[in-house]
C-alpha cells in the first residue's frame, strides 16, 4: 500500500518537475540518452553488420541458397546432368546455375615482353558459366565495374574478377601476382588443362567476395571444351530457391535422393567460411564490450545530471521532508524522472534505428574494403539493450537522490553543510 502511495506521489512530483524543467536541459539529457542508445545498438550492429554484409554477399553472389560441389576426391561432380534433372523436379527450386571450374593461369603483354622481362602472369580460377542462368542466381551483371557482362554467344571473351588486376589490387607477394596493364579490350592468354587460348577481356567484375573477384568467367561451352568435360559433369551447381522455401529441408531431400554420393551438398550457411563465423563471434564480443562502456558512460551521465539536479533542489527536498513527505516519495520522483529520460531517449533511438538507420544502410551499405556493411539490429537484442539502459539509468538516478534525501532535513532547508 505504502509503495503505491509513494509511487503515486513520486509520479505527481516527477511529472511537475519535468514539465517545469528547462526545455534545453531536458533536450540535452534526452539527446545524451539517444546517443547512448545508438552507441549501444549501432556500434555493435555495424560491427556485426560488417560481417553480415560479407555473409550476405557470399550468399547472394556466390553460393546462392544451396551449393552443390565436387567431392574432395574429384574435381567434378559425377552424374551432374542427373543431379540437375533432380533439382529441376523440386518445386522449391527457382533457378539452377551449373559451373565448370578449373585452376589456370592468365598472361598479359606476352606479345611485347622481352626475354629478360618478368612474365605478367596471374593464377586464376577459370569458371565456365551459362551467363543467363548465373545472372538469375548471383546477379553478376550488376557487379560489372567496367565493360560488359557475358552473353551466351560470346566467343573467346572473358570477364575478369577485380582481384586479378593490379589496378584494383596493388599487392604483390611471392605466392600471389596480379595482371598489370590489363583493361577492357585487352587480349590475354589463358592456360588451362595444358591448353593455351587467347581471349579478350569483355568486362571487369567488382565484388567483395574473394571467390568471385579472383575468378575469370567465360561461357560454359568453351570452358567445357578446354577442360575436356564432354560428359557435362560440372564442378559446382548453385541453386536458388523460391522465397520462403526451407533450405535445410531441400538439402535433406537432395541427400535422400542420393545426391550426396557424388557431391557435397551444403546450404549457404554450411558453406560459409569458418573465418567469417569466427569473426562474427569476435565482433559480437567487441560490440558488447563497447556497449558496456557506453552503458557506464550513460549511467555516469545520468548520475551526474540527477545528482546536480538533486543538489540544486536540496532545499526543496528538505521542505518536502519537513512538511511530512516520505523520503521514499522523493526518491521515487527521481526514479520516474530518470525513467522518463531513458524511455524517451530509447524511444527516439528505436525510431532512429528502425526507421532511419536500418533502411538507410540497407539502401546505401557502408563501403568497407571487404564487405558492404549493413546495420544488424535484431528486435529481441535491441529490447534487451533498452531494458539494460533503463535499468542502469534508474539505478543511476536513484543513488544520488538517496544520497541527498538522507541528509538532515533542517540542514537541507537552511542550506547548511
Amino acid at each position, binding site marked *: 500500500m505504502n509503495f503505491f502511495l509513494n509511487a503515486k*506521489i513520486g509520479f505527481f512530483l516527477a511529472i511537475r*518537475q519535468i*514539465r517545469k524543467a528547462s526545455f534545453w536541459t531536458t533536450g540535452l539529457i534526452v539527446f545524451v540518452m539517444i546517443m547512448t542508445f545508438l552507441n549501444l545498438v549501432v556500434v555493435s550492429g555495424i560491427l556485426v553488420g560488417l560481417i553480415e554484409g560479407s555473409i550476405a554477399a557470399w550468399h547472394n553472389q556466390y553460393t546462392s541458397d544451396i551449393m552443390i560441389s565436387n567431392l574432395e576426391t574429384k574435381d567434378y561432380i559425377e552424374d551432374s546432368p542427373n543431379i540437375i534433372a533432380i533439382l529441376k523436379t523440386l518445386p522449391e527450386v527457382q533457378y539452377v546455375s551449373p559451373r565448370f571450374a578449373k585452376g589456370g593461369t592468365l598472361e598479359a603483354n606476352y606479345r611485347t615482353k622481352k626475354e629478360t622481362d618478368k612474365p605478367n602472369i596471374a593464377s586464376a580460377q577459370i569458371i565456365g558459366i551459362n551467363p543467363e542462368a548465373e545472372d538469375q542466381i548471383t546477379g553478376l551483371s550488376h557487379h560489372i565495374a567496367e565493360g560488359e557482362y557475358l552473353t551466351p554467344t560470346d566467343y573467346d571473351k572473358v570477364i575478369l574478377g577485380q582481384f586479378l588486376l593490379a589496378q584494383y589490387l596493388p599487392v604483390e607477394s611471392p605466392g600471389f601476382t596480379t595482371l598489370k596493364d590489363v583493361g577492357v579490350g585487352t587480349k590475354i592468354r589463358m592456360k588451362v588443362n595444358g591448353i593455351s587460348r587467347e581471349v579478350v577481356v569483355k568486362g571487369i567484375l567488382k565484388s567483395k567476395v574473394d571467390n568471385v573477384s579472383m575468378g575469370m568467367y567465360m561461357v560454359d561451352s568453351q570452358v567445357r571444351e578446354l577442360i575436356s568435360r564432354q560428359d557435362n559433369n560440372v564442378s559446382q551447381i548453385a541453386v536458388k530457391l523460391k522465397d520462403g522455401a526451407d533450405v535445410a529441408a531441400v538439402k535433406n531431400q537432395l541427400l535422400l535422393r542420393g545426391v550426396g554420393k557424388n557431391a557435397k551438398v551444403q546450404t549457404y550457411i554450411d558453406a560459409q567460411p569458418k573465418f567469417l563465423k569466427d569473426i562474427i563471434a569476435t565482433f559480437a564480443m567487441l560490440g558488447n564490450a563497447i556497449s558496456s562502456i557506453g552503458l557506464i558512460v550513460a549511467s555516469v551521465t545520468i548520475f551526474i545530471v540527477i545528482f546536480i539536479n538533486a543538489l540544486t533542489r536540496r532545499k526543496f527536498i528538505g*521542505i518536502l521532508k519537513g512538511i*511530512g513527505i*516520505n*523520503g521514499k516519495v522523493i526518491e521515487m520522483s527521481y526514479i520516474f524522472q530518470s525513467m522518463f529520460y531513458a524511455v524517451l531517449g530509447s524511444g527516439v533511438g528505436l525510431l532512429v534505428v528502425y526507421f532511419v538507420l536500418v533502411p538507410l544502410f540497407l539502401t546505401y551499405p557502408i563501403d568497407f574494403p571487404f564487405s558492404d556493411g549493413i546495420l544488424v539490429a535484431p528486435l529481441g537484442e535491441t529490447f534487451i539493450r533498452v531494458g539494460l539502459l533503463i535499468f542502469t539509468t534508474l539505478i543511476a538516478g536513484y543513488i544520488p537522490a538517496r544520497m541527498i534525501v538522507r541528509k538532515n532535513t*533542517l540542514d537541507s*532547508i537552511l542550506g547548511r553543510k
Partner: protein
Amino acid sequence: MIEVKNLVKTFRDGEAETKVLKGIDLRVHEGEFIAIMGRSGAGKSTLLYQMSLLDDPTSGEIIINGHNAHVMKSEEKTSFRLLNCGYVFQDYALLPELTSLENVVLPLLMQNLNKKEAYQKAKEALVKVNLSHRFDNLPSHLSGGEQQRVSIARAISSHPKILFADEPTANLDNESSSVIMDIFKELHKEGQTIIMVTHEQQYAELAQKIIKIDDGKIISVTKV
C-alpha cells in the same frame, strides 16, 4: 500538549563547539498561541526547529501529545510531522514547480486521502486565506504576501495539532504582515495551537504568552 525538558542543542564545527540552547524547559498547552522572541542568535529559531521535530536536539526531551520525539526514527518523525504539525517558514518554502493548489494538496495526498477529498480540502484552505482566485498560479506569479498565505493554507489544510511559524512576517511589508497576523488570530480563535518565532513586538503581543530567550536560555515568560 508539548513538553520540553532540559533541551540542549550544540553545534560543532571541527573542534569548535557552540551551545545554542542551554537547557530549555517549556510547556505548551492545547489551543495556546505562543510567541518566542529574542535578539538574533539567541536561539529562538533553533528552539522552534527542535520542538517541531525538524532537527535533532543534542540532549533533552520533547514530548508531544504523549509521544517522546527523542525515541522516534527519522521516518517516524516525518510521518509524525505530516499528521500533527503545520509549518510556516520565513521564506514561504513553496515548491516552485507546483501551483498554489498543488502545493497545498501535496501533504493531503500523502495522507492517502482520496484525490477529490484532498483537492476539496486544499481549496477550502486556500479560500480561508483569501486566495480563491490563485489556485492555478505558480509561486513565482504570486506576491510575497500571497506566497505566505499559500504556505499557511498548506500548513492548516490537514488541521494539524500544532502550527509552527518561523518569523512569518519577516519578509513582508506592513500590509501583508497584518493580513498574515489576522489569519493567525483567526486560527487561534478556532482553537489552533500556534508556536511562532518573531522579532516584532506588535505581532508577538497577539499571542497569549511571550517567551523571551537570550543566550540559549528562557529569560522571561509573559502572559499578554
